């Protein structure tokens, strides 16, 4: 043995605990300013979807561009009173709450019980602390659909709770896709309960769901949401969920409306060439898909008006549901619908509220 103290010792792996706060002072522009405006903490990490060295481009903070409170994921736990404050701000009478944390469930690929545990806890927390039908605050029960039994347990739990009016399936990362027969028992139970199935997109920042290597949120927020919803629409339609469960109300949320005509047109073209591969369908997939309901947000108001009009016409104004996505950074106010020139007042009322009251039996 040598006397290490008197010998030359080289440590080849020391971790200096650098902080972004200090290093950023030396970073070139525009990154120094972007860092300063991004509200990351000293470690360069705000919350799971926001960091300077990202595993994700899903940073709603937008380098400080959107400053409105709560436009990003909150630093502090949400206060239930903010729901009614937000509803007052938007002049909304009834809101359907979904969990924002559950949007990342597709990232859990291990066969463990994190998603099940979270959803069970969420159901009780929301019932106890947040949901209040007297105030118009209702909830959608998140489905840990990777575990069908756990999903059925949740449906059993909420069946007699007035505050829960539907089941929520996060579309990002569902594997196998949500038309697979594996999920049949959940759909069967929802149909039995008159519980609409709300497919809610995700995928912005969950970059690998789309294609690795995108650099900015504008890329993944555009494509991730679309990809997540489109892949499930195709699966649900082609595998015949609407034929298996004809009384099940199907709702797709948060991808705007302009993707629908393109998707169904392309799918119909495929179907006419290969109908035997969707053997439960009696007719074109578009006829099933336009019986689905679609949340309007984020409505593409900058599109050509005749395109929007065509989309509304193809989907049907009786199938469109106003959605704000509040408090997220790209929320839509009711005025987004109200100011559309191609709608008459009855259609405005239907999209802003009437259709939803009917679908969710509120």
């Amino acid at each position, binding site marked *: 043995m040598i006397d290490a103290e008197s010998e030359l010792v080289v440590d080849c792996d020391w971790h200096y605990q650098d902080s972004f706060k200090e290093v950023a002072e030396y970073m070139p522009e525009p990154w120094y300013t972007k860092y300063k405006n991004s509200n990351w903490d000293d470690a360069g990490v705000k919350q799971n979807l926001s960091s300077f060295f990202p595993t994700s481009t899903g940073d709603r903070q937008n380098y400080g561009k959107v400053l409105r409170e709560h436009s990003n994921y909150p630093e502090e736990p949400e206060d239930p009173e903010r729901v009614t404050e937000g509803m007052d701000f938007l002049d909304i009478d009834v809101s359907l709450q979904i969990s924002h944390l559950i949007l990342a469930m597709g990232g859990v690929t291990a066969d463990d019980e994190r998603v099940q545990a979270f959803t069970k806890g969420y159901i009780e927390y929301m019932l106890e602390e947040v949901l209040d039908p007297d105030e118009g605050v209702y909830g959608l029960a998140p489905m840990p659909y990777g575990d069908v039994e756990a999903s059925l347990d949740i449906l059993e739990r909420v069946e007699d709770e007035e505050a829960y009016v539907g089941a929520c399936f996060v579309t990002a990362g569902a594997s196998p896709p949500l038309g697979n*027969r*594996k999920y*049949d*028992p959940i*759909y*069967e139970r929802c149909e039995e309960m008159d519980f609409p199935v709300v497919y809610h997109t995700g995928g912005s920042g969950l970059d690998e769901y789309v294609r690795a290597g995108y650099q900015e949120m504008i890329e993944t927020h555009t494509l991730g949401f679309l990809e997540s919803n489109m892949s499930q629409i195709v699966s649900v339609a082609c*595998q*015949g969920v609407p*034929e*298996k469960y004809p009384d099940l109300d199907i709702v797709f949320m948060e991808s705007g409306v302009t993707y629908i005509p393109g998707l169904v047109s392309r799918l119909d073209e495929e*179907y*006419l*060439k*290969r*109908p*035997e591969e969707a*053997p*439960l*369908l009696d*007719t*074109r997939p578009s006829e099933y898909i336009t019986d689905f309901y679609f949340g309007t947000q984020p409505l593409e108001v900058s599109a050509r008006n005749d395109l929007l009009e065509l989309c509304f016409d193809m989907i049907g104004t009786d199938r469109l549901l106003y959605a704000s996505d509040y408090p997220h950074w790209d929320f839509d106010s009711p005025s987004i619908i109200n100011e559309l020139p191609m709608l008459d007042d009855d259609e405005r009322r239907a999209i802003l509220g009437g259709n939803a009251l009917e679908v969710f039996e509120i």
Partner: protein
Amino acid sequence: MSDAENLVEVGPASEFEDGDAEIVQVGRAEVGVIRAEGEFYAIRNQCPHDGGPVCKGNVQKELVGEFKGTGKRVDQQYSDTDIISCPWHGWSFELDTGIHIGDDRIRVPTYDVVVDDGIVYVDKGD
């Protein structure tokens, strides 16, 4: 029995095997006379999709699926319905009716076939 003036001769029935198609001119239309499972069918040889030669396509039974219950695989089997698939893009039609197997609003015109004294005829339907 069809009016003889309306009949277009195709050829001896004995020369047809199952799956064979013979193209004849019926007025301004090309019509394919096809034998499947011993029965004769006649349909317009023009796919409504892109004008492809439907009657030169594959003749087979229609593959259909049936929902057998929650969580079960869709049961897929070949039915008794004979279909023909356009060789260009696969649009497929019931031989008996000319109806597209995925959308009954799409139809290829069909014609009556008469076999008289061993000879196959297409009825122009005039």
